[in-house]
């Protein structure tokens, strides 16, 4: 249990130390060191307890709960103040509603509650802890170097780096708390802290857009928070002793009791995981400095949303409400992937691809068969690694070239060879065969066929994955095109960034190489523990995939083996005399430049156009889920 408490409290303590330190090397060193400690801590946790199955710890409920309640109220006051200050009255209203629910709960129902087993750990928690610990710390380390450059480039932004690093570490601490808590009240407490942290980080630059987007994120997440809080009223009224507030007891209590809180909490999960119609906040969040995006998208925040849905998968299994939520995820997957085609802004493409992948995870978890839960957890892992790598690559390129537009990434391989290779690795990790995301997609297809309404999901997946190939491959082609001009600008990238980027690249490849191990050591035991049966990929397929990865690693060597140099020719320009930077004399002797541009298909896959249909559809699906559960409750059946 001490490891858990250490992982929760240590980042928190560091956060307060960082709050006191000015901008200097000491802070950078502390961030780097504590990042190292946190990652080692999470690996230590893995090494010592991965064989142990689920272990529950009777951590005393009081006085911790009281401290948490006080903090929660303080947060509410802070949000109210900010809401009034920025005239965001809807946010104020939502905070008031949520606080009212919590106060009512605390006043009338909380007295008898004595949940015992408040902390726990199982294989899934370990996976999450590894993701948070390793990737989260790497991003924090990257941020030290990034934020220095950020403030050089943006002199208009008030330097609030103390607050920045404070929030980042609080964020990590809250995420650890979230995945280690077996007490739903505590989960909720950490849940609210992640909402607050992301609110503060998105609004970091204090520009009008940033503030608005921060409030958008706050509002949408508060909606989920209210649903989450409402579930407590239900739980406490069903069992006044508070036993049901224990996550494992609740899930084991059977669908007839657990379905209502499960749907409420999974709704909160949908908002946090930026599913449609709530996806706007994650897209808006890209105004924040890039490390924040990386953090939100890979190891924290949105992963909390899918984490909780995966936890409730056994409850949703076989219910129509689960299918409806699954469809929300599936529609989100398809539509967000399609929208990604039409975006030229690299961060926006990444944002929509995150939303899409979360959609897939939600679809898998909500339908909830063992195979699909296996696929969902795989997706969480691979997505975290590859997506953080991609964000940080884009951030680095943006700082050097001043643009995050994919159209400006021609010949990145010439200007930033190493970063381009890393970025390409990350992209490959998102959609190509031997890499992780594709394995999970494949497992998802095989899993959905045998699930109820599976054919609808399979269809959506088939179209969605085709779209995914398109938008990733065209980006990859852009950065790998070898322009005949341009010089290497890589020298100016700082050491800390290199360390982080190369670690993440190695992790992306390692994740693909070691996934059978991860599966058999962590995911399969977890799925087995929950369902009594498990899923895995067949041996032959694993061997073939490992072969493919080895081939991919060997193939680049062939560049050095070919004995004779082939003669170099310029590209075919219709025979026109062309300068080395591809300028040529057009008609009437006007000099023109050859540029290439990718397809974006605005007219088919435009953002507004698609959201116009998908948002109402998803709202409808959520309402259907709610109606089904309500009707089921009145009839005494589980729908």
């Amino acid at each position, binding site marked *: 249990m001490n490891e858990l408490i250490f992982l929760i409290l240590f980042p928190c303590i560091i956060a307060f130390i960082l709050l006191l330190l000015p901008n200097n090397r000491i802070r950078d060193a502390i961030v780097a060191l504590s990042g190292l400690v946190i990652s080692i801590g999470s690996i230590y946790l893995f090494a010592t307890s991965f064989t142990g199955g689920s272990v529950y710890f009777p951590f005393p409920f009081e006085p911790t709960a009281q401290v948490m309640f006080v903090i929660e109220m303080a947060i509410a006051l802070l949000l109210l103040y900010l809401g009034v200050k920025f005239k965001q009255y809807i946010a104020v209203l939502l905070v008031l509603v949520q606080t009212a629910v919590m106060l009512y709960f605390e006043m009338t129902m909380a007295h008898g509650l004595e949940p015992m087993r408040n902390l726990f750990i199982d294989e899934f928690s370990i996976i999450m802890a590894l993701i948070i610990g390793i990737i989260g710390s790497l991003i924090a380390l990257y941020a030290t170097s990034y934020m220095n450059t950020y403030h050089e480039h943006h002199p208009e932004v008030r330097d609030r780096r103390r607050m920045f690093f404070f929030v980042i570490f609080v964020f990590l601490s809250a995420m650890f708390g979230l995945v280690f808590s077996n007490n739903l009240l505590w989960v909720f407490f950490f849940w609210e802290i992640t909402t607050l942290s992301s609110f503060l980080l998105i609004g970091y630059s204090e520009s009008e857009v940033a503030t608005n987007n921060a409030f958008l994120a706050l509002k949408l997440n508060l909606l989920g928070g209210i649903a989450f809080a409402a579930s407590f009223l239900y739980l406490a009224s069903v069992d006044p002793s508070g036993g049901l507030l224990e996550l494992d007891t609740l899930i084991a209590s059977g669908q007839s009791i657990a379905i209502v809180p499960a749907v409420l909490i999974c709704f909160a999960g949908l908002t946090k995981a930026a599913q449609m119609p709530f996806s706007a906040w994650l897209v808006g969040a890209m105004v924040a400095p890039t490390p924040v995006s990386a953090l939100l998208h890979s190891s924290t925040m949105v992963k909390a949303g899918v984490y909780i849905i995966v936890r409730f998968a056994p409850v949703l299994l076989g219910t129509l409400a689960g299918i409806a939520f699954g469809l929300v995820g599936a529609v989100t997957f398809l539509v967000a992937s399609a929208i990604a085609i039409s975006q030229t802004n690299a961060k926006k493409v990444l944002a929509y691809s995150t939303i899409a992948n979360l959609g897939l995870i939600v679809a898998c978890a909500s339908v909830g068969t063992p*195979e699909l839960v296996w696929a969902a957890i795989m997706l969480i892992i691979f997505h975290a690694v590859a997506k953080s790598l991609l964000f940080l690559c884009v951030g680095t390129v943006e700082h050097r070239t001043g643009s995050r537009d994919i159209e400006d990434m021609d010949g990145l391989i010439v200007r930033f060879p190493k970063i381009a290779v890393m970025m390409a690795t990350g992209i490959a990790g998102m959609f190509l065969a031997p890499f992780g995301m594709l394995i999970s997609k*494949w497992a998802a297809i095989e899993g959905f066929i045998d699930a109820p309404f599976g054919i609808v999901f399979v269809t959506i997946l088939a179209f969605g994955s085709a779209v995914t190939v398109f938008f990733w491959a065209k980006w990859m082609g852009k950065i790998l095109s070898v322009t005949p001009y341009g010089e290497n600008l890589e020298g100016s990238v700082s050491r800390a960034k290199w360390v982080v980027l190369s670690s993440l690249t190695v992790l992306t490849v390692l994740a693909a190489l070691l996934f059978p191990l991860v599966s058999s050591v962590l995911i399969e035991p977890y799925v087995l523990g929950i369902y009594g049966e498990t899923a895995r990929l067949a041996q032959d397929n694993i061997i073939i995939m490992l072969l*493919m990865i080895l*081939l991919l690693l060997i193939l680049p060597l062939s560049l050095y083996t070919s004995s004779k140099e082939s003669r170099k020719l310029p*590209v075919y320009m219709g025979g026109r005399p062309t300068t080395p930077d591809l300028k040529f004399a057009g008609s009437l002797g006007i000099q023109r430049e050859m540029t290439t541009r990718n397809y974006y298909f605005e007219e088919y896959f435009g953002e507004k156009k698609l959201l116009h249909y998908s948002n109402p559809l998803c709202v409808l699906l959520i309402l259907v889920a709610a109606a089904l559960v309500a009707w089921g409750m009145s009839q005494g059946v589980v729908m």
Partner: protein
Amino acid sequence: MGYEPGGGHVTSIITALAFVVLAPLVGGLVAGVDRKITARMQGRVGPPILQPFYDVAKLFEKEDVTVTPSQNLYIVAYLVFMIVSGAYFFAGGDFLLVIFAFTLAHVFIVLGAYAAYSPYSHIGAERELITLMAYEPMVIFTAVGLYMVTGSFYISDIATSTVPAILYLPGVFVGFLVILTIKLRKSPFDISTSHHAHQELVKGLTTEFAGPVLGKIEIAHWYETVVLLGMIYLFFGFNPVLAIVVIALAYLLEIFIDNTFSRMKWQWTMKSGWGVAATLGFLNLVIVYYLYMGV
């Protein structure tokens, strides 16, 4: 998942090796016959059946020229992964993995075309991606349909299944024929590279490849053709003779379509590929799904 394929490993390895050795011969011959029949349809005599082999042999006699060395790397990867995925298909492996490995191979040739940074190969690459996007859903539907009918994703099981898959999957089969036209780069879907001169694309995707590298691309095409024809076989696994006849007829049909259509816009490719998948493919699957789930 969690299911081991039928058939021994030894036979798998033998069929895979046979594919690696024989597929280029078969694929090349098919290409030769294709050109001969095309010529006959146009009232010409046409080249010798072995012409494709002469062409490739010639390409290997030519000088090796590139725009950038990395192009060659991508094409080697393209060929290698084409062979690997084809070999896995003939070894009786998982259909979905075969499909994804094919996608990987195709992404490599696309990257090779992008790498050159040439206007013509760039547009070819983009359009190749469009075709990839156009046919992918229907290919996945094919795998899924065969799974529901035969109960396995393994090619070895599907090919040896006694279930007359075609009777359950007529819609999927027709859909597959449509995307076969796309995959074989036949008109009206030869949008990414053209077989004929004097077009705005020049040679699209392959514009910047010459000599031995172009030869490798040709060989990869041959491998691909054989696998695609093998996929037709899966619908008729219950009767090998019938399967061979249907394969021949299907290919003849493709040649006929090729010669009666002109190249259309890329939108047409998208609409055809997704259209058949969403209508014929989907409806067929829904019906089979009902039977399969026993509802």
